[in-house]
């Protein structure tokens, strides 16, 4: 999927759009095409026996959507819930998932070749889920492979072995 777009981009403008967001002190970005919408944090319905970073589910126009607080997941900042708390609703393979982040910065177009391989360590998110690093106006951005992160085992968003 990413390859196909990269090829396309190479023939036209070699840029890809990302949504950047903050978790603690670090600035991350994810493929804008997997973002469905950005909304404020609303009351969630808790689900029993789930890890604390799974806040519960919300009603998004008739769909039941799980909410994951990445701040808690990565032990980054104090997880406060107020009028400015932001939820990014992702649409991954037709599954909707909401992630809670500290703030959303902006949409940026990154030249594809400016994304470098990620160093082995140095960010809160496991390098397994990081597809690269990029710099933009002196800011360092960590490009998250959100698809991979959301389908990873430790998030428990997807049933592991279904009967």
């Amino acid at each position: 999927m990413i390859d196909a777009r990269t090829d396309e981009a190479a023939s036209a403008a070699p840029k890809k759009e990302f949504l950047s967001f903050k978790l603690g002190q670090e600035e991350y970005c994810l493929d804008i095409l997997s973002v469905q919408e950005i909304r404020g944090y609303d009351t969630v319905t808790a689900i029993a026996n789930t890890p604390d970073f799974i806040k519960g589910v919300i009603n998004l126009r008739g769909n039941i959507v799980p909410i994951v607080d990445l701040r808690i997941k990565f032990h980054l900042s104090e997880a406060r819930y107020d009028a400015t708390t932001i939820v990014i609703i992702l649409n991954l393979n037709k599954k909707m998932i909401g992630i809670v982040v500290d703030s959303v910065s902006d949409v940026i177009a990154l030249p594809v070749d400016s994304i470098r391989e990620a160093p082995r360590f140095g960010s809160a998110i496991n390098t397994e889920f990081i597809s690269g690093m990029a710099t933009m106006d002196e800011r360092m951005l960590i490009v998250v492979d959100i698809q991979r992160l959301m389908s990873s085992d430790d998030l428990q968003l997807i049933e592991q072995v279904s009967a």
Partner: protein
Amino acid sequence: MSLDLSRFHATFFAESLEGLNHVEQQLLDIEQVGHDKGVMDAIFRTIHSLKGSAGSLGFGVIAELAHEMESVLDRMRQGLMSATAELTNVLLRGVDCLRNWLLAAEAKEPVEAASGVELVRKLQLLLQRGGGDAAASRAVTDTAADGGTRQKYVIVFRPARDFFHSGNDPARFIDELAQLGVITSTADLSALPSLDAFDPTTCYLAWRIALETSASANDIRDVFDWVSNSCALEIEHVRETEVRSAETPQEEGVPRAEAASAARRDANLITMHVRTDKIDDLVNLVGELVITHTMLKQSMQHLDAIKDARAVSVFAQLERNVQDIQERVLAIRMMPVSHVFGRFPRLVRDLGLQLGKAIELKLSGEQAELDKSVIEQLVDPLTHLVRNALDHGIELPAERLAAGKSAKGSLSLHAEHRGGRFVITVSDDGRGIDAKRVRQRALETGLLDAATADAELDEAATHALLLSPGFSTAREVSNLSGRGVGLDVVSQNVRKLGGSLEIASRLGQGTAFTINLPLTLAIVDGMIVGVSGERYIIPITFIRECLQVSAVQLQSVVGQGQVLHLRGEYIPVLKLSDLCALKGAVQSTQPVLVVLEAEGRAIALQVDDLLGQDQVVIKSLEANYRKVEFMAGASILGDGRVALILDVTEIVKQRANIRPMSGRMLSDAAAAPRDSSVVAV
């Protein structure tokens, strides 16, 4: 011949297919009850008129087979031939074949004539012999299969204009066809533009390929499978004499398309075919409407009945309309269960013959209606239960006679609505479930250890074993049932539908499987309960009663929590806040016990409050998330927030068998507990 016959097609297909269903049923009847002049005449008439209509509407192949069947039926009608099993088999296969052809013709697909050739020969042979020697007919069939298999097809392959864009090469597919047999290919250049308008990346060509092959139309279709979305493909089976006319297709092309649309117009008047997903969308939207309505209702609660009389009465009107719409829309998806039952007479007959068992099938309640999605998912479990009953349940005639039963086994399928649920029973009068064999088998497969097996297993525990994965008591693995994927799969499938499977059996007298299902998967009547500030929904069908905790007697059992003593029955008490691991539980001053019952077991669920009763739309948690323990799904309440729906069956299963229920500790009680089973899971 300018008469447009195609407007008769829709009626012809509908009537013929219905007729064939009757014929199938009647043939089975004849076989059961013996020769009956009236029934025989009816079968003859149906096939005769099918032959007539098919012939006049230009379905030569269909008419030909119908003709052969008619000849045989005519002799049977006159009593010159009797309905032997062999004869009935051939006729039934004829019915199948006619039905397939009709369906293919209705879908404007090429009719696959090859399958009929053998049948026609067989019928002719039977006719010559007046029924009898099976070996001879087999010999003829074999030679027919060897000699008459090379068929001619005309394939029109019209790649889409952007065919090259996907990296495909038409020549490759023609090459592949050539491997199936002898091909003659002509290219259709008519779409080629003048040179200045020519775009080299566009495919302007089409091909007409005559193929002589022993492969079937499906094999040909497989060649093009890869590009089926980017080309138009017509495959026509050509009989020798028709080759010439098929080679001049341009003249026929246009009127045929018109004819098709005319046929469709005609069919529209009677019924309308609607894609299922459109109906599903509608059902979803109605779900949303119900939620919005509930929200509105809540925000209108403060209205004054006198001051806002108009608003209140208009709202009442809206409420009725919403309810009506909901009912009607859900009714669209309701189908009589006969859609599933209808397949069993044939299945039972064929299996019975194969197994050498005589079986009488009784169907009742087939008109009861059930949601289409549920019906579709019932086919497999029911088929399995029926096969299971025939294979394991009903004994061979000799064994039955020895046991003092009639030689003919009886299998009945019954459907009915029972208290907002749909109940289907599959029962036989066979040998029943032998608990000893079940236990032995469980030991062999390691489902049970020796110590447990020594203890007396009660009925419920034995049946629980039957439903365990990997369990099958069939002595030999047959192709009917007993591949180890047995009742556990049935039970799982039923549970997926929100239902349950119960077994009742008496050794030597028979077995009954009861499937208990919700009417629809879309909406449920729910009781909304509050606990620790959260709200949950309990499907009303599982609620037996609600009690104030202060008004009843709770007894503590050492180390096991509380039990409710209710009219001589001991019911374990479970706090919903514990089940859902809710923190900061605010103890309600007046907690309520909701007594739930599922699968014959009861549990009392302690909640803080009863908040009301409502029809709620079931939403899947799995759509975006995953299955949540003890929850059947979620719904959206009037205020737009999500509430989870409790999976009562699962809760009862997991929690109702905690030790206080085992009876022995409380055996001094006047009445024994209703449930004393130790469920082996």
